[in-house]
């Protein structure tokens, strides 16, 4: 019997697993997909919010502000791309200036440091590309940008390094209450555990209902985005929001830690797994973003995508003990990514309250480094290639990713099995050619290293095979 089963390995499940792995516990994380970070975690704005949005006194407010501080510390310790670039909320009318004042007041109550209302000219002095129609802006210096999937991966890897076990391709099909815990039914067999953590993202309502009376519904909200070429990456240098409305935080324009510009999202009710973009949605995002930053050049678009947020229609996360030994980490909508490290901590507290005995590990491994060839100096590059020639072979031209980096991620605690899994770990295929040149190379490397036929290599999820059959002449044996 394990101590804790965590259902779902997005950033929330991974954060809970990492925090629990500080203690002498037997932990298993179950993930339905073939990789971590593939739900809401991989498709969002990649922002760490300062914390002025949530209503004071809510769990969300507390976890947001705490999470923002922890994320900064954890990104440094675990080598996750992070930049504290600050954010602005723009006001275009007197009424919106009132909203900024409300946000400021809320932020102060929530304990957000450094908030300040700037005049339109002061805002434009910081961000020259802002529209002339901007009358004022709320400046939040602690807002940051992050690589969300790498944050999740770093948490999950840390958990695994500290003894947690991760089972991929394992979907929970039912939960049964037992005298001293739970019986977890999965598509890959049953397992017994003393405690269960529900971190199932957009499906957290379904998992909740397996263990406790129905009490909430996830009302998924789909958001569509543009990702623009690095040529547009410095159009703005801070996160630029518009005033929030009941539909969400609105369309933002922001740099990414990878050097691109991200623009979006809209917010449309959708199915839980509807990740399709729409012409109307993308038009809306473009037109709305231009109100903030008229000069964004959408002809430099390299990708569109959509993500689904686990909204519940309530003002707070749904975090708590739902049944004996069963903790919900549910309804994690924005600012879920920011709050994740604090939610992880809080999950431990809740489990302790349910009787989980916590004994700190003597040695908790809390470090992670990966080589990013592109960021090395000439001397470091020379030394690295001399030591391992695989670092001399550039596979992804646009992002300058070497074979050595791909081989290293294949030897990491949670190796990728897909082309997009490689992309999330080392950025190969994330650039302007979107894998046109490197995807065949990555397929070849995966096929060689995983010792499977190229026909079995998937783009992302299981079933997303890239190649269908050999040609009449047969596969080349390179």
């Amino acid at each position, binding site marked *: 019997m394990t101590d804790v089963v965590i259902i779902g390995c997005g950033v929330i499940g991974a954060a809970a697993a990492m925090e629990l792995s500080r203690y002498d516990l037997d932990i298993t994380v179950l993930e339905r997909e073939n990789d971590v970070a593939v739900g809401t975690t991989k498709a969002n704005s990649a922002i760490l919010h300062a914390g002025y949005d949530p209503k004071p006194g809510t769990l969300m407010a507390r976890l947001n502000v705490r999470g923002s501080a922890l994320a900064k510390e954890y990104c440094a310790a675990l080598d996750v791309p992070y930049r504290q670039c600050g954010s602005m909320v723009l006001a275009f009318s007197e009424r919106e200036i009132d909203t900024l004042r409300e946000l400021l007041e809320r932020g102060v109550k929530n304990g957000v440091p450094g908030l300040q209302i700037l005049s339109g000219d002061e805002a434009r002095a910081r961000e020259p590309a802002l529209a002339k129609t901007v009358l004022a802006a709320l400046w939040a210096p602690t807002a940051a940008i992050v690589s969300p999937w790498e944050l999740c991966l770093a948490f999950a890897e840390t958990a695994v390094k500290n003894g947690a076990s991760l089972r991929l391709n394992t979907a929970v099909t039912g939960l049964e209450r037992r005298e001293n815990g739970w019986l977890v039914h999965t598509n890959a067999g049953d397992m017994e555990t003393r405690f269960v953590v529900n971190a199932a993202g957009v499906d957290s309502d379904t998992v909740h209902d397996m263990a406790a009376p129905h009490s909430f519904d996830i009302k998924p909200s789909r958001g569509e985005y543009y990702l623009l070429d690095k040529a547009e990456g410095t159009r703005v240098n801070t996160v630029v929001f518009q005033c929030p409305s009941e539909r969400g935080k609105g369309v933002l324009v922001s740099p990414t830690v990878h050097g691109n510009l991200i623009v979006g999202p809209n917010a449309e009710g959708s199915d839980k797994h509807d990740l399709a973009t729409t012409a109307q949605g993308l038009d809306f995002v473009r037109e709305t973003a231009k109100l903030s930053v008229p000069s964004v050049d959408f002809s430099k678009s*390299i990708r569109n*995508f959509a993500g689904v947020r686990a909204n519940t229609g309530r003002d707070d996360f749904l975090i708590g003990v739902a049944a004996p030994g069963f903790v919900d980490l549910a309804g994690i909508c924005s600012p879920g990514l920011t709050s994740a490290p604090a939610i992880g901590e809080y999950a431990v507290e809740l489990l302790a309250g349910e009787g989980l005995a916590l004994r700190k590990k003597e040695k908790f491994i809390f470090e992670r480094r990966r080589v990013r060839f592109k960021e090395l100096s000439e001397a470091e590059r020379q030394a690295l290639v001399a030591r391992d020639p*695989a670092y001399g*072979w550039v596979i992804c031209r646009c992002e300058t990713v070497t074979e050595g980096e791909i081989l290293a991620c294949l030897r990491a605690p949670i190796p990728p099995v897909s082309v997009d899994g490689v992309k999330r770990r080392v950025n190969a295929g994330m650039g302007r*050619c979107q894998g046109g*040149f490197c995807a*065949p190379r990555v397929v070849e490397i995966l096929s060689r290293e995983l010792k499977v036929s190229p026909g079995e290599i998937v783009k992302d999820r299981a079933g997303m*095979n890239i*190649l269908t059959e050999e040609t009449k002449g047969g596969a080349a044996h390179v």
Partner: protein
Amino acid sequence: MYELIVVGGGPAGLAAACAAWENGLRSILIVERDRDLGGILNQCIHNGFGLTWFKEELTGPEYAHRFIEMLSQTGVEVRTDTMVLDVTPDLQVHMTGPATGYRIERAKSVILAMGCRERTRGAIGIPGTRPAGVYTAGAAQRYVNVEGWLPGKRVVILGSGDIGLIMARRMTLEGAKVLACVEVMPYSGGLTRNIVQCLQDFDIPLYLSHTVTQIRGRDRVEQVVVSQVDESRRPIPGTEMVFDCDTLLLSVGLIPENELTERAGVALDPRTKGALVYENMETSVPGIFTCGNVTHVHDLVDFVSAESQRAGAAAAKFVLQGPAAGESIALKNGFGVSYTVPQRVRPQNVEKAVNVFFRVNRIFGKNEIAVRAGERELCHFKRDRLAPGEMENITVPVKLLEDVTGEITVEIREV
């Protein structure tokens, strides 16, 4: 210190290096990021190459091989599997490869011949899901012709660029069903001969003024929706056709890969998306030349070879005799012309005539290509038909430019 470093060992780099050797340079290095020389020609196993240059019909690898053979008769040094990461304005070339490690080489001249990349789904923003089964035509060509794997069985092709047309035939020959080729413009972007030989001969319908407006399918492409577009290329509601397919190939344009060119401080032309060049393919940075698809996207490799020879010879002249001299004349787009290469000409640096490549921005029937200085016509050339998919070139005798200053205009006149 090399006399010349050529960045890229495709058709442009090969022809340029050979020409530089013939013109007297003896320390030349070609840096190629792939395993083999030849560039994209290596995956173009169809025929139709070399009709102009070699007066015979060759496949892509055969065409490349001719130049590789020629190169092997010279003392040109080649580094394959080596990627150039930076070219500085003072001609230092940073490169990395498993054999040589990270190296910085200096050169007296540099020829940039990196070719181009394909536009992607993200660049044109096709709405819908993001399943497996959406590939650029060139990536699919590599899977089929180099790796020996088919990327799908029921195919729709968006864009009628040449690679898309070639892949329509190639996929059909491999047993796939190509349901349609869809082109947003009212005319094809490819060569007429490819429309005939790759679509018509296989009864593959070509839908002009149509585009893909939605991709459906969770894990694998299941359907694409095709709509007719109006004159401003906006989809017309109510014209949707749904194709059941597992693959969408994109042949929606090529973009010269000029990231290194920009880092080297070379001025670019927004029309070609390549470097602004003089008559000898020299860029705005003395000693840096460019040729081939990195300069402007060509229709036939034969023209790449011709242009690249000019660049190679010019680099040799630059190293051995010093910089080219003389005042320059700018070439301007006139009616119907979307760009010219070169963009500037120094008559003093031209022996007999200037070869000007250009493309038109729509289809023309019987017409004349005119070159004028102000209101004065210098010369004109008669053509029966001009199409945007086909590159045009004219040869302007340099003596006509003798008393011209400032600029000349190339324009199309319908007759």
